[in-house]
């Protein structure tokens, strides 16, 4: 079996700071995702990538950058953290094949707090 590792698990930053979250997967999956989860809300897609060096914007991409330099890793950068922002960022990957479109494997999440 594989695993998705997100680092750091907790991230505390200052307003205006650039903050980076990292995600590693050893499933050898092509497609990877970054979602944002706010308390009481569902998951909202920030960026996804269907292969190395590919980036696709989700519904919430403004204020974020992403990077997929290797197949196994997918990074997300908050370009300017907003004060009082608190959310959990979830990384996921997907097995190949269209029938697996709905089957994502998730990491444990990275919790962001902005002071």
């Amino acid at each position, binding site marked *: 079996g594989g695993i998705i590792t997100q680092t750091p698990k907790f991230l505390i930053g200052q307003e205006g700071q650039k903050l980076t979250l990292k995600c590693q997967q050893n499933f050898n999956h092509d497609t990877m995702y970054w979602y944002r989860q706010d308390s009481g809300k569902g998951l909202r*897609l920030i960026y996804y990538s269907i292969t190395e060096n590919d980036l696709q914007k989700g519904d919430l991409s403004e204020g974020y950058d992403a990077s997929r330099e290797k197949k196994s890793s997918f990074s997300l950068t908050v370009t300017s953290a907003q004060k009082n922002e608190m959310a959990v960022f979830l990384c996921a990957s997907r097995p190949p094949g269209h029938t697996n479109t709905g089957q994502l494997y998730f990491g444990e999440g990275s919790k962001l707090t902005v002071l």
Partner: protein
Amino acid sequence: TQTVSQSDAHVTVFEGDSVELRCNYSYGGSIYLSWYIQHHGRGLQFLLKYYSGNPVVQGVNGFEAEFSKSDSSFHLRKASVHWSDSAVYFCAAAATSSGQKLVFGQGTILKVYL
């Protein structure tokens, strides 16, 4: 725009009861549907999925879901819940035309009392 709606924010049952968590989607074409479970402080875990074929699909831990095209629904069911089933459940959908963008509902908090 494709949307996923989970009408119940909270559902409370007793251990051994049956439960149904509702999910409706808005999209007219072919669609991929799935359910996930999230225990407190953890990531999401895949439960089951549907794309075509038998509209009733079986998942892990006794969960099943039924697809209905006429109702635009994909409700999750379990015949006898256990206290450890207490968690947040998310329904998700991806239209075949949207490629690999999976859209999630807002989640239903299931509490199972002993």
